[in-house]
């Protein structure tokens, strides 16, 4: 027990205590400087529920969740299976594919801002060069494309993370299972569906939970690439919170948004864990 004390203390001071403080601040109307004087009960929460930007940012977070779980995880699995297939030179590609995860998020954001630049950037230049110049867009500046342009970069950064996770999982699947399946005349798709997927199930659920949590509190690339714009089309819960606290001098309201973000994440994550435990019990 004594060995837990330092970690517990660390956890208490740097995680639990600030969460409690945020909860406290959320009941005040406080600009973030000066004394905390205006106790307003739940007004901040009521305002959040009535704020269209709050709901839009929640919607954007869910779009990000679907993109993470629906794109990053399948593509990560596909890449992992490619790497595990034993083709030549795959060790090299393993390193290369993993690079985006290692890069600084801000550096990635700036890099892609230049790639997406409508006038000088690589993307529009390539589209023009191959005769698709009618597809050229102001990627980060147009309301219709901004969110998806950033999500593409988020996926580029994080898919390799899931790829490595799944690769590790794939190497633990006993070869005998595949041999048995082959003896039963199973084709490639059937081997995937009946051997690979079930063996990877636990890992896929874990990865999905990571993707879910990460997407709900995501901040980095949106902040660097669009700052939540244009016209709040790419706003996320976290960027909204940041803006309320540090640009609009509304620390109390921002704390309320933070508490709501915490509650939403907790609820969804618990639900997913509960669902996965239940269906796991049924499948084994």
């Amino acid at each position, binding site marked *: 027990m004594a060995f837990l004390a330092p970690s517990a203390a660390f956890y208490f001071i740097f995680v639990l205590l600030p969460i409690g403080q945020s909860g406290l601040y959320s009941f005040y109307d406080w*600009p*973030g*400087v*000066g004394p905390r004087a205006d106790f307003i009960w739940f007004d901040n929460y009521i305002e959040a529920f009535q704020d269209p930007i709050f709901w839009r940012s929640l919607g954007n977070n869910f779009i990000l969740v679907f993109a993470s779980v629906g794109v990053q995880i399948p593509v990560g699995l596909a890449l992992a299976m490619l790497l595990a297939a034993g083709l030549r030179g795959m060790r090299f590609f393993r390193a290369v594919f993993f690079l985006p995860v290692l890069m600084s998020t801000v550096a990635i954001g*700036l890099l892609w*801002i230049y790639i*997406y*630049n*409508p*006038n*000088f950037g690589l993307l529009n230049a390539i589209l023009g060069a191959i005769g698709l110049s009618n597809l*050229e*867009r*102001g*990627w*980060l*500046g*147009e*309301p219709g494309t*901004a969110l998806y342009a950033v999500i593409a970069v988020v996926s580029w950064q994080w898919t390799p993370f899931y790829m490595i996770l799944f690769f590790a999982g794939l190497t633990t699947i006993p070869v005998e299972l595949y041999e048995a399946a082959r003896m039963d005349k199973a084709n490639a798709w059937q081997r995937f569906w009946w051997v690979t997927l079930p063996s990877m199930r636990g890992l896929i659920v874990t990865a999905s939970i990571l993707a879910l949590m990460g997407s709900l509190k995501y901040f980095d690339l949106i902040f660097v690439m*669009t*700052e939540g*714009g*244009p*016209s*709040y089309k790419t706003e996320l819960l976290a960027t909204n919170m940041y803006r309320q606290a*540090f*640009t*609009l*001098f*509304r*620390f109390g309201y921002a704390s309320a948004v933070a508490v709501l973000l915490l509650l939403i994440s907790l609820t969804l994550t618990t639900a997913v864990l509960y669902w996965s435990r239940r269906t796991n019990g049924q499948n084994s």
Partner: protein
Amino acid sequence: MKHRKSKLSGSSDLSRRDALKLSAAAGIALPAGAGVLNMFGSSPAAAAEMSGSVEFWHLSNPAPAAVYTSSVERMRVAHPGVDLRAQSIQNDPYKTKLQVAMGADQPPDVFHSFGGGGVLKAFVDAGKVMDLTDVLAEDRFVDRFAPASAFDNMTWEGRTYAVPILVAGAFFYYDRDLFQRLGIKQWRTWDEFLAELHKMKENGLIPIALANKARWAGAFYYNYLVGRIAGFDFLPKVLSGEAKFDAPEVVRAGELLQDLAELDPFPKGFNGLAYDTGESRQLLYSGKAGMEMITNYFPGTAAREAPEYAKRIWFTPFPIIPGGADDGSGVIGGVSAAFAVSSSAEHPDAAIELLDFLTDATARDEFAEAGIVVALKGANPPDPLMKEHAKAFENAKSYQLYWDQFLPPALGQAQLDVSQSLLDFTTTPQAAADHMAAVAKTELG
């Protein structure tokens, strides 16, 4: 021997930074004290040796930053006992950084401010800014600044909280040779302006370079239009309750703004281009765009980034709206850099000494050399472009500071939002005016 934890002030513990500062100050004070003991026999000047530390934050626009740095160096030479630390920070990150520092009670001692009833007033109301009224009455400061209206945006209830240095305004900057080649004529009215934009488009130029991710660049147009139509005293009238944002003049300004946007004079994806990383200036330097509405820091920036282009820069004002309340001389701008002192500065004397160095005659002449217009008396810029700027400021019958600095934060942000949305047609002029009136009602009561 067990040491009892020292019981310093109950509510706030001595932060590590404060403790370091204290020990640094003690480290400087002790030898200084020893020096005082040696005083009998050395000059009185040694006894007046200034000590302490000053943390100075300023914006990183290259031309004025060079003069600030030179002032800092001169002070270091004159007062080697002062630990003077200067940080040069980019425009948009600076606003956040200062806010956070203020909130965390670790503000810089001397810091840049735009003045205005928005950010600076919020800090003043929270008691974070030193009242400089008495300091400014001192001999060394009393006759230094001009015009008197330069203090307007930093004085409330007769007390002044910052010292004005730079005067700026937003104008259209363009390449003189390029416009001459294409036969672009000087405009006076709005229609003439639109006609010249058409001409630029026909010649394959992007008429206006605009990087509006941070929203203030596009807001200039809205601010000017409201000023030209409703007069440059519109905002003060709104703040005092005499006027409202859902006035027909504001709606008309929104309509004209969308007329401009409909011409498609801006670069593709302009609402996502960032000014700080040069995404609009690139277009000017490479000859792809005709002009940009930006503050008069631009020639200085261009001199460093594209010296060949910088030689061809000239400027022209925002067009007149016939029938509007302003005669075309009004300028969106005003004092664009002022320096304030934090009320918790540990060595206020040293901080004020820095203000002295930042605004003295040497600094004034360096600003003039660099072609920067200042609120200091006796400046005489040698450069014809800068002389033209000085004339424009002198002739301006009215000023309106950038709205996002002048208005309380929520209103300032609201106008940034609506102007960005008007430009990409995600809102209508009436809705924009109504939104601002609604925010004003909550903010101003």
